[in-house]
Structure formats: C-alpha cells, structure tokens
C-alpha cells in the first residue's frame, strides 16, 4: 500500500529531465559540427547505438524492468557526453570499448541508474585515453585550417572501414591543449606557441565557440531548474582562479585563465558532467566544494599531469570524494542549533 501524498508534480520524470539535458547539448554539438565537420554526427550515432545495445543487454542480464529502464534516456545522455569528449572519426571499436566501460562497468556493475559512484561517460573517456592515447589525441582541426575535412559519407568510411580512404594527416591537428603541453615541454617560447593557427582569439580556434555554446546550453539547464548554479559557478571560478595564480607565478609556462575557461572540456565539464547528480554532491555547500575542487584539480592535472587534459580525471577524482563531502556539508535542519536561530 502506498500512502500520501496522492498527487505529484505534473510533467516531471527522469525521462523528461534527461530530454532537457540532451536538448541543452544541441547548441554545442551543432557548433562542433560547424567547425569540425559532420563527423561528430557519425560518432554520436555510433555511440547511441552501442549505448542502447549495451544498456539493453545489461538490463536483460540483470533481469530487471527492461521496459521501464531502456526508455529512461539516461544512457543516451551518457553516450552523448561521451561522444562529445572523444575525437570523432575514430574507428568504431574505440567507441564500443568506451561505451562498454561507461555503460556496463561504470553503470550496471554498480547497480544501474542512480547507483554509479563515477560519471559513466568520464569513465569511458578515461579508459580510452589511458588505453589508446594515440587515437584519443587525433582531433580533427577546424575546417579552415586543415586540408580536407571528411564529409558525412567519408566520415562513415573512416569510422567503419578504417583510415584507408583518407589520410589522417589531411584532417587532424594537434589540439590546442596538446600543442600547449608538447611545445612548452619542448621549451618553445609561449609567443611562438600562440602563433600556431590552432589558437583562436581566446582559446582553441573554433573550440572557443563550441565552449560558448556549451555555456549557453548550461545556462538553459539552470534556467530550467535541471541543475543548480552551484557546481558550474564554483567549477568555473576555481578554474579561472587556479589558472590565474599559475599564470601569475610563471607567465612564460602557463596559459591564462581565459584560455582554460574557454576550452570545450571545461565548459562541458562544468555544466554537464560535474553537475551529474548521481555521482556528484547533493548538498548546496557540498556542490560548491565539489565544483571548486574539481576545477582546481583540472587545472593542476592539465599543468602538471601526463595527459593534455585533466577535466575528466578531476571530476572522477571528486566523484570518489562526493559522499564524504556530502556527509560533512549537511544543511542545518529546522530546529537544530549550530549557527542558526532556534527558539528565543
């Protein structure tokens, strides 16, 4: 028997929330396609297909509510975020391995929807960058900088038939973060590095627009009350502050805050990944701490770590700490003392 309340908020479901998140991802995805070619649609499609396949298989194996869960949309959000995090035009099996780890290992082995301690998309990304770093660093360059950006049909070929048809050199470029990391290690002066055409006005050429579109989508999410402002604001503020401090200490070897803020992964992380309620913090103060530490770690890993980007690792690291932070940031409950006004 189920008791009161006997009414529920209308138009309110997990599926709807997921749909809103996906809607907010559209601007960023379109911007990505505009600058880096339609390859992103192919990888997105491939990721969706594998995600639904693995989700379905996992649900069937677990023997629980296949019909209820297959349509909840959570796996599509995971697949979408994953597809935006990995280079498009990589071989299909790369996406399969990433999605396998994201959906089966990171999500269903821990109990499925709502039970995963780590953000599944980021687990998939981390597995790939650690296992196949060479594929994961081959990003297509902006259309106006590379020789030939594959069309939709060529993208299909690349993903499914391998790289025979068109040479990777024709469309790939070192990503801005990669360039920064490699050249700075090699001792090239910062001015010379920034002369590289992959840099735009503030950050990566083209990528700064994608980042901006993620920002637009994220603001829409906040306006729609799908997420609260705490995590993104804390995350971005911490990224800016940490980058500013490092830049102030050693301007020759560190990029400024604006460069870091306007990288696509920072914006995607701030609004779509660090805000994942399942694996993040839930108390208001906890969200602030979570976001701030994740942003700080992202910059630290970017600057001193072995891989060019650190957003995924920083968020995964903070995922581990989230329950702990939550436990220590419980809001003061009505009628409980401690700073609050209780009684006369």
């Amino acid at each position, binding site marked *: 028997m189920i008791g009161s309340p006997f009414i529920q908020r209308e138009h309110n479901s997990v599926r709807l929330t997921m749909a809103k998140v996906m809607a907010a991802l559209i601007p960023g995805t379109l911007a990505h396609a505009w600058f880096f070619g339609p390859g992103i649609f192919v990888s997105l499609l491939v990721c969706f297909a594998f995600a639904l396949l693995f989700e379905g298989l996992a649900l069937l194996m677990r023997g629980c509510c296949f019909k209820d869960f297959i349509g909840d949309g959570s796996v599509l959000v995971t697949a979408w975020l994953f597809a935006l995090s990995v280079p498009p035009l990589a071989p299909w*099996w790369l996406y399969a*391995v990433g999605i396998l780890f994201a959906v089966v*290992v990171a999500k269903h*082995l821990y109990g499925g929807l709502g039970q995963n301690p780590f953000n599944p998309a980021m687990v998939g990304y981390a*597995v790939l960058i*650690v*296992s*196949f*770093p060479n594929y994961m660093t081959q990003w297509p360059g902006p259309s106006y900088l590379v020789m030939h950006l594959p069309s939709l049909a060529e993208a299909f070929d690349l993903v499914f038939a391998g790289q025979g048809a068109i040479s990777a050199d024709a469309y790939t470029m070192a990503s801005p973060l990669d360039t920064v990391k490699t050249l700075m290690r090699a001792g090239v002066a910062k001015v010379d590095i920034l002369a590289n055409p992959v840099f735009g006005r503030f950050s990566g050429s083209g990528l700064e627009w994608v980042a901006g579109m993620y920002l637009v989508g994220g603001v829409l999410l906040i306006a729609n009350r799908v997420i609260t402002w705490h995590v993104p604001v804390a995350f971005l503020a911490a990224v800016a502050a940490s980058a500013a401090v490092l830049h102030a200490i050693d301007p020759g070897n560190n990029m400024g805050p604006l460069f870091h803020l306007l990288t696509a992964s920072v914006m995607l992380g701030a609004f779509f990944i660090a805000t994942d309620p399942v694996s993040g913090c839930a108390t208001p103060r906890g969200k602030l701490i979570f976001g701030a530490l994740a942003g700080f770690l992202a910059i630290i890993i970017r600057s001193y770590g072995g891989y060019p980007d650190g957003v995924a690792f920083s968020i995964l690291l903070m995922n581990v700490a989230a329950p702990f932070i939550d436990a220590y940031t419980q809001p003061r409950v009505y009628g409980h003392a401690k700073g609050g006004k209780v009684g006369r």
Partner: protein
Amino acid sequence: MSPETREIIVNGLWKQNPGIVQLLGLCPLLAISNNVVNALSLGLATTLVMAVASGSVAVVRDYIPQAARIPLFVLIIAALVTVVELLMHAYVLALYVVLGVFLPLITTNCIVLARVEAFASKRGTLHSVLDAVMMGLGLTLVLVVLGGLREVFGKGTLLSGLDLVFGPVAKDWVIQVVPDYQGLLLAILPPGAFIGLGLIIAARNWLEGMRARRARVDSPLGQTA
C-alpha cells in the same frame, strides 16, 4: 580424504580464498599480476614460503611464548623469504629483477602471517602445511587468473616472459591469443589490476549468489525471500 582435509582444501581454494574472499596480500597481488608468468612465479614463491613457515611454526608451536608470538612468526617468515630471495637472485635473475621489491615484501604479506597465526600456531604440522599450501595455491590461482586476464586484454598474449624462467628457448612458447591486437593498455597498467580483481570478486559473488538462490528455491521455505 578426511572431512577435515577436504575442508582445508575447499577453504583455501574457494571458501576462504585469500585473494578474493579474505582480500589479504593485495599489494603484491595487484602489483605483480600484469602477466601470467609473473603472477605464477610470485604465487609459487609465496606458497613455498607459506608452506615452510606454517610447517615450522606448527612444529615449534608449543615452545612459543604468547607475548613473543608475532615477532617470532615474522622472524621465521622473514628468514625464509630472504632465503628464497637469495636463491632466486642466484638462479633466476631476470625473474628476480621483474619481481623486484615484491619478493622481499612477501614477508609482510598478511596472508602468510594470518595463516601462521590463525592456523599453524594451533593445529598439527601436516594440516598446517596443507592449509598453507592450499591458501598459497588459492592466492596463486587468483594471481594467475588476474594475470591471464590482464595479459590477454592488455597485450593479446599469454605466457609472455616465459623466457625469464626458462631461458631464450621459451620465447617461442608465448601464445598470441588475438593476432594484431591493439592492446587495452588499461589492463596492464595499475588500474587494470584493481578493475580486474574487482571483476573477479564480483564473478565469485555472483556464482555464490546463484548457488545460494538455487539452494533457497530447493528448500521448503523457498520463494519467501
């Protein structure tokens, strides 16, 4: 086989498996399981130390004063480990280099001390040796499975590095499981050890759970739970 003997064997290999049930000795388990050969070598070295340590403790157990129990056990184990280390250094140098610090670390492997303390110091010599060997083999089993998994997924081979034990002849014994394999590097790297061990533990729990469920359905009280 007496029921007691059988229980010791089952406990060591499955029920109380040190690697995936008691979760003891994880440090070498995780560090040295990146391929089958390393895993097997460390597992057997540990088993050897365990057998001799348990046996000798069981022999002298009546003469060990209560307060000096742990220091004495550690003394015996440390001495044995050092002997094994010296021997390996002398005769299988390549393996000795690969196993590195984890060889002397057998001394601090909890499972060795745990079996000495929990079993050998209270039971007869033969049973103690059997228990130690079974526990050691249980650990070796987990190590080999984990090493095999990591090697196959990480490199697509099995038994690579066999030449470290048997000399260059053994280079041809390496089994290429998947030809032209890309290599899931994660499996070879340290995180792969954790994920692999987790999966093995999960698999064991799943098996046990299935067995328990089947037992429950068979019992008259079935279906209620």
